[in-house]
């Protein structure tokens, strides 16, 4: 076999390589470097080996934050995915309602994260916030700065409000790509609404749902800005997620070594979870492709 070898191609990818190195590889290596050393300031570093990692994995504080984070991620997935599918199913497929719905759905996505936080922080306040004031007047004791349950509910509702639209839009894209003949066939076969959903709509949405779950999982696992603005991780440590904990450690306490070790572990967790999600979801329901000579 003969190949056309053209070395010019390497020059073309150099800028990208440089950019990736600058933005990802070098910072990552710095973090790796920090994670195995100790410092008392003055730019003096001492070899610490795996000490920080051992300490971290043994620490209750880290494990609590991790568990909190997982509970948070799975809660919002459990709410946003079904809700997103439901809203997408309710949206019109044609007519003037389509652009209206799409714009309405896109609105929350356009709001910057810290603004979302601020909105809900004010919205939920018992003294001046519309939500907090109303709830308290209705006799429901609601105060997210003191009550962990209220804080959790606030953070989750805020995320649902902010991100369900993304799931809706993805699902809607999947739904409109289903040819009309499928619905017609289902009517002829006497299929119920549920059967249409289960055997036509859901299988056809599978790909976009995979993307939605992945995006929402990664995003929610890395959530920082919104809960930080609203609850600051409190009351107590009840809404202190990994990212908040990390920042507290790195910037609040200047424990660079442990913080670096933690971010590496954090990074690995996201990577592993995303990979597992991806493989599991792509294999669900997929028929093993037959080796077939063309």
């Amino acid at each position: 076999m003969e190949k056309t070898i053209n070395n010019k191609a390497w020059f073309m990818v150099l800028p990208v390589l440089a950019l990736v190195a600058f933005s990802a590889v070098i910072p990552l290596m710095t973090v790796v470097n920090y994670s195995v050393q100790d410092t008392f300031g003055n730019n003096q570093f001492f070899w610490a080996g795996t000490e920080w990692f051992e300490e971290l994995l043994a620490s209750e504080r880290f494990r609590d934050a991790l568990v909190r984070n997982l509970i948070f991620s799975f809660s919002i997935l459990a709410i946003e995915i079904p809700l997103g599918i439901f809203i997408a199913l309710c949206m019109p497929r044609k007519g003037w309602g389509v652009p209206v719905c799409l714009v309405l759905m896109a609105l929350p996505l356009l709001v910057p994260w810290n603004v979302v936080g601020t909105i809900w922080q004010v919205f939920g306040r018992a003294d001046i916030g519309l939500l907090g004031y109303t709830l308290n007047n209705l006799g429901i004791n609601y105060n997210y700065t003191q009550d962990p349950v209220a804080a959790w509910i606030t953070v989750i509702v805020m995320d649902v409000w902010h991100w369900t639209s993304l799931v809706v839009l993805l699902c809607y894209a999947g739904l409109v790509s289903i040819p009309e003949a499928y619905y017609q066939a289902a009517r002829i076969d006497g299929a119920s609404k549920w059967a249409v959903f289960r055997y036509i709509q859901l299988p056809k949405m599978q790909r976009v749902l995979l993307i939605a779950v992945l995006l929402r999982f990664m995003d929610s696992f890395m959530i920082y800005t919104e809960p930080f603005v609203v609850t600051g991780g409190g009351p107590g440590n009840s809404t202190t997620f990994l990212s908040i904990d990390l920042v507290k450690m790195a910037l609040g306490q200047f424990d660079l070594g442990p913080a670096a070790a933690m971010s590496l572990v954090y990074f690995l967790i996201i990577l592993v979870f995303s990979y597992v999600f991806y493989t599991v979801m792509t294999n669900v329901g997929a028929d093993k492709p037959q080796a077939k000579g063309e």
Partner: protein
Amino acid sequence: MLQLKGVGKVVGGVDHIMDVSMTLEAGSLNVLLGPTLSGKTTLMRLMAGLDKPTSGRILANGKDVTGHSVRKRDVAMVYQQFINYPALTVYENIASPLRIARLGQDEIDRKVKKAADLLKLSPYLDRTPLNLSGGQQQRTALARALVKGAHLVLMDEPLANLDYKLREELRAELPKIFAESGAVFVYATTEPSEALLLGGKTATLHEGRVSQFGPTLDVYKRPNTLITAQTFSDPPMNTLSIVKKGDVLELPNGTQIPVADNEKRLVDGPYIAGFRPHHLHLSKRTDHHFGLKGMVQVSEITGSESFIHVDCVGETWVALAHGIRNIEVDDEIEVFLDPRNFLVFETNGRLATLDMPVEA
């Protein structure tokens, strides 16, 4: 001129194209004929440079272009779907490759008008493609491919999405249009009748291999393997197992028939005889005809002709008969065959008789 030398393509460990060698002359029309998944599209993508072959070389006008990307290859393509720029008028659609080539307005105008004339699009130049019929949309796509003056024009089942009559119309015009340009034309289709109507040369594809390549009628009348014969036959070619014993051919039911002159040279042994439906008759036409009893499965009328599906000596055959035959299903009828019409294949599928069968 486009030359393929031992071209192969492996995707994920599976052979999609195997050892294809062919020379396509400038100004020629080459039909790639084969069923879905036989590799027509893959082969076209290799010719275009959209994909890189895993083995072999591709030469354009003697120059090695293996691995050169499609952008450098001077290729035009027409697809089964009508692909045009929806926002541009027909005129601008046709002119688009010329604008990219930065030709002068006068020259663009001249070329667009000429292509539009050729494809009968002149009255619609100001319309956008969505306001045209399917046939006109595909004509626009064809005009765009032609005006580019590309050295290689690839068409992947361009008429498949058109109505029967529109297809017939455009198909009759295509050879004339091709003759006007000096490019290498490659035309993929699943339909044998389309290949016959287009003429030119035909390559039959089967499971990623070109089983035969030559002038269309030659391939049709003298297929070198049973596979080629079956690929290039609509209705499907009928087959019959025979054993040659001296001067007779023995059929599976024990009937012995005299060997035709052109089969005398065959060595004794088992063979497979292939014959086309229009050579299976419902009445005895010549002395050479021998009759076999069969059971009618289905009879279909196409207006001037009838197709009779008949079970005979353990095979299901199709007979094409003139006129309207009202034959009832499950009737027992006698069908007649002339051994001189047999294409005799060895049991491994290779053609055994090299003489042309005599026309009945």
